[in-house]
């Protein structure tokens, strides 16, 4: 089916929810945008490996893809390179490098050489420290353009935030985990929740 036929269909009285799936697929191509080929610009290969590992700890592969499959590391590199303030970027990279320093102090080796248990212990410690610090703070609704600017200066806050954003807005996360549909198959404001179609 051609693009103009899709548009003609849309402009007619055809009910959108009844359009066949291939039309929905074409629809998303109507406004397709090219994304640039991935090549890391800020993270070194070692830093990238640590980021990829921590991201997968936060959102692991289960019955749906995890952070690694969704290439969250590439998203994080893009944000560090083209979106973060220089201060936020430096702080993130310094915090990332500090991960190895901490595991060397605790376990005598780099993060990536630690056992799964050791890695999990370190990240659990990071998470507990973070949540203690964040408790009692008021999290008002932040503006759309600014809502993912780091609200807490710690490395792990930014890491967790970027992992969740990068994962749930990826094609893998949005489609397979959230069942996101560009054009919802139905609209019902208050309906029984059926787990397999808990689309947003």
């Amino acid at each position: 089916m051609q693009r103009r036929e899709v548009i003609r269909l849309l402009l007619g009285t055809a009910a959108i929810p009844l359009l066949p799936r291939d039309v929905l697929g074409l629809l998303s191509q109507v406004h397709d945008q090219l994304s640039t080929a991935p090549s890391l610009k800020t993270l070194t290969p070692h830093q990238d490996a640590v980021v990829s590992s921590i991201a997968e700890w936060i959102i692991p592969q289960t019955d749906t893809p995890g952070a690694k499959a969704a290439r969250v590391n590439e998203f994080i590199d893009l944000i560090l390179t083209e979106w973060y303030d220089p201060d936020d970027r430096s702080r993130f990279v310094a915090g990332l490098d500090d991960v190895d320093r901490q595991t060397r102090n605790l376990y005598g080796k780099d993060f990536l050489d630690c056992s799964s248990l050791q890695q999990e212990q370190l990240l659990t410690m990071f998470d507990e420290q973070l949540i203690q610090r964040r408790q009692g703070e008021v999290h008002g609704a932040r503006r759309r353009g600014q809502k993912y600017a780091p609200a807490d200066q710690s490395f792990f806050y930014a890491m967790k935030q970027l992992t969740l954003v990068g994962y749930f807005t990826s094609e893998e996360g949005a489609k397979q985990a959230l069942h996101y549909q560009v054009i919802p198959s139905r609209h019902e404001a208050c309906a029984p929740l059926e787990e397999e179609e808990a689309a947003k």
Partner: protein
Amino acid sequence: MPAKTYDAIVIGSGITGGWAAKELTEKGLETLVLEAGRPIEPNKDYVEHVPVWKKRFREMGDRNRFNREQPIQQKCNALDELNSKFFVNDQQNPYTTDEGKPFLWIRGRQVGGRSIIWGRQSYRWSDLDFEANAREGIAVDWPIRYHEIAPWYDYVEDFAGISGQAEGLPQLPDGKFLPPMEMTCAELLVKDAIAKHFPGERLMTIGRCAVLTQAHRGRAACHYCGPCDHGCITKSYFSSLNSTLPAALATGKVTIRPHSVVHSLIFDSASRKVTGVRVIDGQSKAALEFHGRIVFLCASTLESTRLLLNSATTEFPAGLANSSGQLGHNLMDHTMGGGAGGRIPGNEDKTSFGRRPNGIYVPRFRNVKSKHPNFLRGYGMQGGGWRQGWERGIELAGFGPEFKQMLIHPGPWMMDFYGFGECLPNEGNYVELDKEVKDEWGIPALRIHCQWRDNERAMLQDMSIAAAEMLAAAGAKDITPYLEDNPPGLTIHEMGTARMGRDPKTSVLNSHNQAHDIKNLFLTDGACMASSSCVNPSLTYMALTARACDFAVASMKKGEL
């Protein structure tokens, strides 16, 4: 060969310019629409169906570019990665303010103007609004009352398509509604609680919005994809691009000229009429002239006033059609930023499907039946109830498989109310031409002097309290009242500065949006407003425009213009 003279020139192609184009052409006038910005091709420029993963910054936008080119526009909640192209470049479109008194001027320059990105909430004014100035001795009386505009509300609602629920409230008259959108589970619960705890005072209704809930006049019903402010290929929400400009084009009598930055109006002192406009081509910057028998100024509140200020003549040294000295004064915007949010327990086994482009509305309840001790007039509340998504995980403890599964599952139901408050007209809130700063096309920039006063501040506080009360009545938990100090302008309901009134000595426009001083000049955008009500103003601009067009064409036929 003498230059062509159009029957009518319409300046601007947004909400009001679109209506003027439709009405004037349908009544037979050969009409030229001048738009400062570029043309928009819906098939190419609308971007509502781009999935989030196709966006380079996943909807967060190119922050460095925003900081560089749109530092003011990006303060608007609606601006994001793809629709930022429907907002102006702040570098090309400067304006100035007083130190410590910011005004955020959010603008769109393209065919369709801000009607592409507007909020679509559509409410009628009532006589509680039209009589307010006279009753309180503030500013000047409106020259019209509800019964004079009511048929025009009917008329524009019927064409635009407004979905909503009739409630029979005197302060918020019902319209000709398409079926209302549905409320979410949390909203239904809160609505019932408000009806029970505040009988006869407050009620909650679904937002009245210019989004179709059924096919209407050749446009398809909404398919609930969500981001209306990215355009809509099915034309399911009202915009001039989706509705009025196509109607004008269908008459064969309209010429839409994009890239036409109007510099000033041409005034003929012998006939005391405007004979045309001076235009700077937006691309080549060539100086051009266009001529017309009548001129409709629909460039948006502050642009229309700026244009009149920049059209001063020896007869009108303080700005064209400004014998009253009122041009530029009484700038208003709605206050926004007082409200509360909370968690609504229950309904864990239910959710919402689709992305409803609308919220709920609590019509004004202050100073309706009883008098509030701290402020005049009132506010309406918007908001909504929804289940939290994965974003909540950013502030929650945990990581790993269970954490991931929890975030895939919808979170608790939340409910939010935030007020939109009426702003009193104040002579001291005004605009003038900046003596030094000019825009990209060499036209003097505006200098805006505007600040909230005591009445607006008092009302803002009450919004937070009232919102929290309603949440408490509904059994909400973790109620969080908030009070944001947003500068004027951010609500994008700026209005006033060329007010309507009965007396040419104290107002710029008469009861038909016709300049007191210049009979063939009409101004029908937000600049005409003599007070601000608390409801979203666009529907009223539409009705006033259609009404003014009817009057103008009738006057032309009688040979009065």
